[in-house]
């Protein structure tokens, strides 16, 4: 290449570059001029306007908090609502001696140690210059007494606020949940979801249960009032107002009366009950015992009550229906039987001879039946009615874990049911793959045996078992379980109905279903494991009892309830649907440490069924006595 040409190009290039640079400088000068123009406009032309806004009459943007939506049961019974009441509040930034102020207030009205502790906690968690509540639910007399003395307290004021109330209290605590004061974590969450603006002025947010899961429906849209305030912060004139929009009303599929009866039926037992309408997936009752008083949390729980709830051996804060994971025990047997029929592993008529135990080929380890000496000759129908363990040890071994896994997972075991309540756990349906991942070990034949009677690695939640039972009752057509029937909008008075549509159809053979359902109906007839609890019912109940071992027993050891610490006693299960021919309700009862399904869990189910199908309200019973009879499942 010619050197001369290159040099010329270079110079020309430099020239063009400098030209562009000059244009750039012009561009920057233009930008700066725009800014300067804007500053002149704001700071000279419009100065008086902004001066007024900033100095003498500041515009204060006041959020107006919307009323939270109501929660109703399917018949319109109120489960959560708001009422207005007076609170006594202190503004900490205007107080010099907090202790003295509170002491002086206590001469006017009662301020309990719990109130003081709660106030201290609120003070520690204070986010901005808000006033903090020292007493709530003031009586008219207390309001009057304070009003007279108001001049002595310049940092204390009485405020009218809306309170959340849960009329059924403990009975719906795990279902409805509660709202609580917005804390740091909530603020982060809100900012992350770009919702912080709508929560300006809001003090409360749903913390658990439906209050949390449907927070977006319940909260409503915050209104805004632009007011002029003078330099002391007093409102002088309203400039504009955008009214708030109340939260939507939730109508549940829950039947409050049914819920109450179910709750009562547990007596002193801990446990859970979930009842579902198998024809549409509507959850009719959702109980976790024991409950707790949700109103404790609404105004900020005092440390003492919190410790009591949190450290109680009964774990009242644990939502057993949704999050409790238990071995399914014998309640898995109807599903295992269906699997056996589905894979053609066992024909209905094939009988086994039960010596009271099961051996794997080439092993001397005995898997024992609950009945010493065995049940003799057992076919599939009888295996469900009398709950023969030996039959299912064999069936599971013949099916193999892969088939068991694939069949049971279609019923929703090992997965969340997708109930519209946050925090569901997924239970555990074991597979070869799972065991390798969890224990770095391969699956042994022995692992499969106990899976057959729901006593191996498998764990279910009461919710899951209820879903599977409802699917079985509805001939394999599954409806996604849900708690909300309808959302009533306060904005345009439109109601959104939650439509029930089938999620899946397992396409089960009607003959197989017929056999298993008939056997389950026989469970509640004389000779079955739940005969006693079902005696005298004018409708047919199809059911299955179950017992979940809490403590494993050694080879040859005998289970003796009286010798075992109460909290190590077996959990009692009962799954049922009724009427057996045309099911209207499917349910699961779990009674922790209740012993045998037939003895403890089935009577609870019976009361629920009697009310739902017959409208029969049980008489208030004396606290249930531990059943010591030797009935097994």
């Amino acid at each position, binding site marked *: 290449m010619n050197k001369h040409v290159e040099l010329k190009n270079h110079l020309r*290039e430099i020239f*063009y*570059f*400098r030209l*562009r*640079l000059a244009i*750039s*400088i012009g*561009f*920057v*000068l233009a*930008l*700066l001029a*725009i*800014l*300067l123009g*804007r*500053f*002149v406009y*704001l*700071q*000279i032309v*419009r*100065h008086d*306007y*902004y*001066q007024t*806004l*900033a*100095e003498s009459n*500041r*515009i204060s*943007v006041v*959020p107006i908090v919307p009323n939270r939506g109501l929660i109703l049961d399917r018949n319109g019974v109120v489960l959560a609502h708001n009422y207005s009441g007076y609170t006594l509040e202190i503004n900490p930034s205007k107080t010099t001696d907090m202790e003295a102020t509170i002491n002086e207030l206590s001469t006017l009205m009662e301020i309990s140690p719990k109130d003081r502790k709660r106030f201290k906690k609120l003070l520690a968690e204070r986010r901005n*210059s808000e006033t903090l509540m020292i007493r709530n639910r003031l009586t008219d007399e207390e309001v009057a007494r304070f009003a007279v003395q108001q001049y002595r307290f310049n940092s204390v004021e009485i405020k009218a606020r809306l309170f959340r109330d849960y009329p059924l209290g403990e009975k719906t605590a795990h279902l409805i949940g509660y709202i609580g004061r917005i804390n740091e974590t909530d603020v982060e969450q809100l*900012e*992350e*979801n*770009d919702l*912080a*603006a*709508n929560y*300006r002025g809001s003090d409360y947010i749903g913390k658990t249960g439906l209050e949390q899961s449907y927070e977006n429906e319940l909260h409503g849209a*915050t209104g*805004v009032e*632009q007011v002029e305030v003078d330099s002391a912060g007093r409102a002088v004139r309203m400039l*504009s107002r955008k009214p708030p929009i109340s939260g939507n009303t939730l109508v549940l599929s829950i039947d409050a009366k049914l819920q109450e009866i179910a709750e009562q039926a547990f007596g002193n037992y801990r446990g859970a009950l979930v009842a579902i309408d198998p024809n549409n997936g509507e959850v009719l009752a959702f109980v976790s015992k024991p409950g707790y008083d949700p109103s404790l949390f609404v105004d900020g729980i005092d440390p003492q009550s919190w410790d009591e709830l949190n450290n109680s051996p009964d774990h009242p804060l644990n939502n057993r229906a949704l999050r409790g994971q238990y071995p399914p025990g014998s309640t898995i047997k109807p599903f295992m039987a269906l699997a056996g029929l589905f894979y053609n592993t066992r024909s209905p008529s094939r009988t086994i001879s039960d010596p009271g135990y099961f051996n794997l080929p080439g092993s001397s380890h005995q898997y024992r039946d609950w009945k010493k000496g065995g049940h003799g000759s057992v076919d599939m129908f009888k295996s469900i009615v009398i709950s023969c363990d030996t039959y299912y040890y064999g069936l599971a071994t013949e099916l193999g874990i892969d088939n068991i896994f694939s069949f049971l997972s279609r019923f929703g075991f090992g997965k969340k049911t997708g109930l519209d309540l946050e925090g569901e756990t997924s239970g555990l349906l074991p597979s070869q793959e799972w065991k390798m991942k969890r224990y770095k070990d391969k699956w042994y034949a022995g692992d499969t045996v106990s899976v057959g009677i729901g006593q191996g690695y498998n764990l279910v939640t009461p919710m899951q078992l209820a879903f599977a039972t409802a699917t079985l009752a509805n001939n394999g057509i599954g409806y996604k379980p849900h708690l909300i029937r309808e959302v009533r909008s306060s904005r345009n008075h439109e109601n959104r109905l939650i439509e029930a549509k089938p999620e899946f159809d397992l396409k089960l053979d009607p003959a197989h279903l017929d056999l298993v359902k008939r056997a389950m109906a026989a469970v509640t007839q004389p000779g079955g494991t739940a005969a006693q609890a079902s005696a005298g019912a004018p409708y047919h109940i199809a059911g299955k009892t179950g017992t979940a071992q809490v403590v494993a027993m050694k080879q040859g050891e005998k289970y003796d309830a009286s010798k075992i610490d109460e909290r190590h006693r077996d959990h009692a299960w009962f799954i049922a649907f009724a009427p057996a021919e045309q099911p209207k309700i499917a349910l699961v009862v779990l009674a922790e440490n209740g012993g045998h399904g037939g003895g403890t869990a089935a009577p609870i189910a019976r009361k629920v069924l009697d009310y739902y199908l017959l409208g029969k309200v049980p008489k208030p019973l004396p606290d249930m006595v531990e059943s010591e009879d030797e009935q097994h499942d």
Partner: protein
Amino acid sequence: MTRRQLWRRITAHLDLPLLLGISLLMLTSLVVLYSADNASWHRPLSQVLNIVAALTCMWLVANLPLHYLMRTAVPIYLLGMLLLICVALFGEISHGARRWLNIGVATIQPSELMKIGVPLMMAWYFEKHEATLTLKNYFIAALLLLMPIALIARQPDLGTAILISASGFYVLFLAGLSWRVMGVMFAAALASAPVLWSMLHDYQRHRILMLFDPSQDALGKGYHTIQGMIAVGSGGILGKGYLNGTQTHLDFLPERTTDFIFAVYSEEFGLLGNLILLLLYFFVIGRGFVITANASTYFTRLMAGSITLTFATYAFVNMGMVSGILPVVGVPLPLVSYGGTSMLTLLLGFGMLMSIETHKKLVKT
């Protein structure tokens, strides 16, 4: 080595006029931060640490000879792209956007790296093909720009995407992209605006709409703009005086140590103060242009020009958004807002400018 020699050694690669301008802006930062933090030393002291760390990095880069600087272009760009892809695949979601990458010890925001990486790469590319520049080369350079932009816009981080686009566009412009092509690009951009609009997230549309009527969202982002404008406007010609801004000290101004620090400054020092600040910025920008004009190679010219123009853009965008003529896009006021990351990125750029200025005699043979 005498003290004098040592001093000369240290300052050999520093550009004193530029350093003077930067230092004055940083000093302003500390003064305003003290007021914005309600007369507390907490933020100003912490900002001093940011400044010291960033100045050290600037000094190191300034001492880096130009061929080293060029050699870093490809690795930095590739690393940045790799990290951006990692963010898209496994980044952490925060505030509805996937911008952060957890690398075990800390979380990093790779788009920050690309603020330098993209113009560096483009300048390097043009230098490589300097002798035989055709339209194809501009096209490839534009592609080098668009790939990271697409990833960043997808996060979504519209503010950073636009700013990096600007810095890349400056390289294209200075590299001599023909006016006709720019005209076509401009027309295409206008034509595609409705399509882009439909691709924007709801909150981004919301922010743009809000620009026209901040009172629409008086509780949310509109609140920032309204309060910012009140602060600036009420400052008047002379301002309310240091530590006397009512908007600032009565808690009306949000984010007043970071993105809205200009409102604090403007309320307390008024139009006169604004004029001085604009002059300070123009001094730094002007020095940048002088360095650009004197730069000895194609690469250094493009790089220096892009750094300078980008700096000017940041300042314009921030002051524009606080005074209500641009949407709130989360851009700090360069060298003044509180924060270590932006300080570091900016001073790395100034380090490069100084290196370009002080190493050119060695290159010019």
